[in-house]
Each structure stands twice: as C-alpha cells, then as structure tokens.
C-alpha cells in the first residue's frame, strides 16, 4: 500500500479517534486517505491551536493527542503548541509534512527544518527518510509519548514517503522502547525520615495529575497526619475541600500552603520539578528541610534541589510502596492540628459586592455554580493566578493550565480539545482579554464542530500581569500593557455565531454563569472587571517568603 494509506491505518491501529490540524500541499495525499477513515479531523484556524487542542484532549483522556500541520509555516506555527505540551509533560504525537527527500535542504517552497526546530521541545522526534522505516517510526512515536514521563513526540514526513510503497511485513513490525528505570533503593531511608518527622508535609506536582495518584496520596497523608500542598500543575489532583489539603503553594499560592512548605522538617515531594515559581529563592528554599523527592524521570532528582533522598518511579507506584512500608508515625499529631487550624484561618476576602466588579468575585461564583465534574482551563496571566488561588477544585473537577511554558492563548483551544474528549462535561475557560485575542479565531472551530464551551473573560483592558509587575517593581511606569482599542468582545463572539453576554455588576455574575453552563453553543461571558485589582498575595520573584506582598490577604499565621 502507499505511505499515505499506511499512515491512516497506523493511526487507526493506535486507536486515534480524533486529530486536529490544517492541511497543506505536502499533506494532500494523507488527507485524501482520511476521507475514507472514521478518524474525526477537526480543522482549526491556526496550527498553534491544533497543538493546544491535542494537548487539552490528552489531559482529559490521558491518551496522546494527535495534531498535524503542513511543512514550513505550518510546522513553525505548531511549535508553540508542542513546546507547551513538552513543558507540562503532556502526551502528544505531532505530525508535520515536509518537502520531498530529494530537495530537502535546498530551500524548497515551504521548507523549514522542522526536525531541528522541534528537537529541543519534544521528548523525541523523527524525520522519516526511508519508507521502510515509516510504520515502525509511527508506532514508536505513540509508545515513546506514553512510556515513562509523558511528552510530545514529533514526526516529520517528507511528501514522497506518502507515495512510497509500504509492505505488509513493514506494517506488522513490532517495536519496543526501553522501559523506564525504577529505583526504590532509598525507600527505607525515606520511610525512616517520614516516620520520625515532627512536621512532615507532602507537596504534589503535575506527575500526580498524570498518574492519578491523588486518592492514594490522601491515604498516605492521613497515615502521616500531615498536610498536602500542590503546585499549579497538580491543582485538582487532590480534593481541595479536604481539611488536610492546603491548596496551591508558590508565588501566588495560599499563605497556609507556603507556611507548611517553609516550616516543615521533612518534605515529601512527588512528581514536581521544584519550579522557580514554587520555590522562590532556591538557595533559601528548604534550608531547614529534609527532602524526599519522588519522580518518574531520574534526571529531575537533584536538578533543582540538592541534598535529598531520591525515589525514581511513577507517583502511584511509589506512594503505594510508601503506604505498604509505613509503620506508625512516632511524633504526636500537634503539627497536623496546627495546620488544620491555620487552614481554617486562611480564608480570603472575595470582596463580593463592591463595584467595579472584582475578578475574585467572578472566580468565586464560577467555583460555586460550575458542576462538580466541570473541566476548567485557564489562559496565562492574572486570570490564571486568580483561578489558582480562588477556584476550588474537588470532586471530579479538573484544572488544565499551561504551567511550564506559560502560553497565553492556551486556555481556549485547550478547552475545545477537552470538550472533544469529554462532550458531556461542562468545560469553562477562565480567560483574559490579552490571551483570548491571541486565539480568538478558534470561535469558528468551536461553532463548526459543535463544541459549546464557556469562556469567562476577565476583561480589564490590560496585559494585567505585566502591568502588575510594572506597578510593583518598575515604579508604575506603564508601557505596552494597556490595550488602547479592544474590540467589542460581545459583538465579536456573535459575529462567529456564538452567544455572548456583557456583565458589569456583581449581582449579575451568578446568573450569567448559569446561562453559560446551559448554553448549547459556545458562550462568551465578558466580565468587565476592575483594572486596578492586582493578584495578591504575591511572593516577589527571587525573594524569600518573608517579603510577601499581601494586599487584601488577611493571613495572620506568621512569616511563612
């Protein structure tokens, strides 16, 4: 059979039901074969969004998302989507078409060296130059994306591969990739540290979301009588209405979570890479703390925090090994009681009624009125940080955000991908006006493919997070952060055929959200929020926890 036919059959064999992309000259043969396939192809309006949609799809379905773009500009547009997935360890197979092998490197029309471009932002990538190896390469890509630490895999396919002959023997070739290493030799040391700890704390990261080990971690936390803090990437992996869960830590995290992180004597860190947004000043982080670091990726252990007991394995396996080996914890549960009390006191003032409308109020109402199995995505910036701090994730709620790369414009397409994976669940994107304008064309994709998501737009007319930094650290010298001429977002959404509503009063918020949840088409809720509102509390970058800017925060639990 021809390479193009083989590609479609191999994708079907990998149980691919949906792919996101835009065709182009070098992909015509492939798309022609798609006509007869049951694979649903979602035509996006910009390749970057094909990447984000595949990413959102993967984070909900826990299966690799597939996106495809043509050579040259298609491939370069896809780069941001792939890099975002890479930083957040999301499984993805990204396919790009390429000019024919006999002109590769000759600056052919629409040629870009996609193989080199994608190399540092993928778990692995391939350029197929021999049709014989094409079937096994495609199989390998799926295997690599989902073995060990998840990640995107890219395949660059020159156009002549699609017309080359592929034999049945080549199609049926079995492939293998090395099994991830597991190293639990430090298990006894880890158990001893945890059992003898006076003030143990568990910090969970994105790895826990991927391995779905939240339930087991709560069991361990109850055995250890210790609080659990999460990173941004782990929000939603443990129930935030559980009294031992202190919520998200870090730069804009909850004070009680940072208190636990900085005052514990033993920290059990699971599936997290100690990002600078979590640790602040690395040199001061955990100076009093012994760290047990669990990660599926051995290269993460000791990368950012030195001096630790390292356990290499996936979160679920290691946590269950810890549970199995745990004897009685020796110290009295005073630490647990203290953290439960502090957690109760760490209650935020949502400023529920004042005008202009406060973004915290919007998040609070979203938290209240979205169903318990809703999927929330965010853009990047203040909207994301308000969502992190004020939205409560419990039950089956899922929180999807671009944590590592911090890609503005991620949330809307990711919400569409999530809706494809879970059409029966309510999907809401918490957006900002800066981020949304980077991907607003995807309203067309949403309409065309019947993907009714809610966009809760926190519209303040600024690139708010950058503005906040200019305000706090650059003496209010604002430049290039105010949008002088924003479009009328309501009219814009309506032009695409979506529904839209402008909301300016606190009293109208709840009703608007309820309408959004029930809407049968994509619905934009344009919340005009107070542009003077900052995301606080805030731990300034590179500073340690004593330098926290508190704002409205009423935390009285002491330096955290």
């Amino acid at each position, binding site marked *: 059979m021809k390479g193009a036919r083989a590609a479609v059959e191999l994708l079907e064999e990998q149980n691919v039901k949906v792919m996101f992309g835009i065709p182009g000259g070098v992909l015509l043969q492939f798309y022609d074969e798609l006509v007869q396939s049951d694979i649903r192809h979602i035509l996006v309006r910009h390749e970057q969004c094909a990447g984000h949609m595949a990413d959102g799809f993967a984070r909900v379905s826990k299966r690799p998302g597939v996106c495809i773009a043509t050579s040259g500009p298609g491939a370069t547009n896809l780069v941001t989507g792939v890099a975002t997935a890479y930083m957040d360890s999301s499984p993805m197979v990204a396919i790009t078409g390429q000019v024919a092998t006999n002109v590769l490197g000759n600056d052919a029309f629409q040629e870009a060296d996609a*193989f*080199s471009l994608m*190399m*540092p932002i993928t*778990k*692995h990538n391939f*350029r197929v*130059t021999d049709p014989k190896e094409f079937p096994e390469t495609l199989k390998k890509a799926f295997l*690599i994306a989902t073995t060990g630490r998840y990640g995107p895999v890219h395949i660059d396919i020159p156009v002549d591969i699609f017309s080359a002959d592929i034999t049945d023997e080549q199609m049926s070739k079995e492939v293998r*990739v*090395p099994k991830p290493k597991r190293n639990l030799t430090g298990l006894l040391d880890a158990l001893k540290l945890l059992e003898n700890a006076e003030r143990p704390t568990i910090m969970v990261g994105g790895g826990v979301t991927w391995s779905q080990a939240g339930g087991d971690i709560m069991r361990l936390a109850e055995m250890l009588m210790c609080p659990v803090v999460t990173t941004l990437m782990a929000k939603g992996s443990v129930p935030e209405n559980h009294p031992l869960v202190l919520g998200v830590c870090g730069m804009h995290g909850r004070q009680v979570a940072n208190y636990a992180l900085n005052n514990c004597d033993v920290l059990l860190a699971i599936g997290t890479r100690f990002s600078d947004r979590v640790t602040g000043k690395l040199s001061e982080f955990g100076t009093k703390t012994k760290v047990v670091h669990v990660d599926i*990726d*051995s*290269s993460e252990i000791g*990368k950012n925090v030195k001096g630790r007991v390292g356990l290499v394995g996936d979160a679920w396996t290691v946590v269950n090994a810890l549970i199995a080996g745990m004897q009685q914890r020796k110290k009295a549960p005073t630490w647990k009681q203290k953290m439960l009390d502090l957690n109760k006191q760490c209650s935020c003032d949502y400023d529920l009624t004042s005008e202009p409308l406060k973004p915290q109020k919007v998040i609070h109402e979203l938290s209240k009125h979205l169903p318990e199995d809703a999927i929330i995505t965010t853009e990047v910036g203040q909207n994301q940080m308000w969502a992190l701090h004020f939205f409560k994730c419990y039950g089956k709620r899922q929180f999807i955000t671009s944590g590592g790369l911090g890609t503005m414009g991620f949330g809307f397409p990711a919400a569409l991908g999530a809706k494809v994976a879970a059409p029966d669940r309510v999907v809401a994107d918490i957006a900002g006006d800066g981020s949304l304008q980077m991907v607003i064309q995807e309203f067309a994709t949403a309409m065309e493919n019947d993907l009714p998501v809610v966009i809760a737009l926190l519209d303040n007319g600024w690139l708010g997070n950058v503005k906040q930094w200019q305000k706090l650290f650059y003496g209010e010298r604002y430049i290039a952060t105010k949008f002088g001429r924003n479009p009328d977002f309501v009219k814009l959404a309506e032009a695409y055929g979506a529904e839209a509503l402008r909301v300016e009063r606190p009293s109208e918020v709840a009703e608007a959200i309820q309408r959004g949840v029930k809407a049968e088409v994509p619905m934009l809720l344009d919340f005009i929020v107070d542009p003077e509102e900052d995301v606080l509390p805030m731990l300034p970058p590179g500073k340690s926890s004593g330098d926290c800017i508190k704002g409205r925060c009423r935390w009285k639990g002491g330096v955290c």
Partner: protein
Amino acid sequence: MEVMMLLVYDQPGVMQRVMGEFNRKRINVETIVVGKCEMADKARIVLSIKDREKAMSVLEHLRALHEVIDADLVEQERHEAYALLFSKEGVCRVTGTVEEVDSIVGKSKPERYIQAMNAI
C-alpha cells in the same frame, strides 16, 4: 578534565541532539571524537569537559535521550595533546602528554605549527 563516553545510534541528527543538551546547560565541550565502533549501526562519542559537577548534571539528561544507548564518565590517566610541526625538512608529528608536546614545540622552534590540546 572529565572524559565522557557515549554509545549512540549511528544516524543523522544524533550529534545535534546530544550537543543540544550541552548547549542548553551552557557546557563547553573541550574535545570531541566520534566514529563508528565495533557494534553495527552504532557509534561512540568520546568527549571531554572541564567541570565534574557539570558533567554529572548533564549525564542523566543524555541517558534519557532515545538515541543514546549508554553514557558514562570514564577514568582518564593523562591529558593528551598532539601537534604538527612544519619546517624546511618537512612535517613532523608529535604526540604525548600536554607537557611533553608543549616542551617539544618550545625546543624545536618550528616555522609554523598546529597543536590540539586535550586530545583523547
């Protein structure tokens, strides 16, 4: 000086991927030798870098690459160098430790010479 040895698949793009890890971590490679080896379709990379801590920090990342089969530090006994000395009589090839080669170059005062340090 730390010497590192990698066993990799012998195919296009491997060097770029391996060097990418050094590039990201801002590690300068002092010397590098690459070639086919006793195993079919595999190649060996031998390279040296100055700092042991940096060498250790990049090792796990190299091992995680799908085209790298094995990566480790190797014990090395001495710093090698070689030189080509050009004179009226012809070309003279010198190999030995860095000190030996330095000393011969110094003594023989050639018209022109090229020297590679830290050869491995």
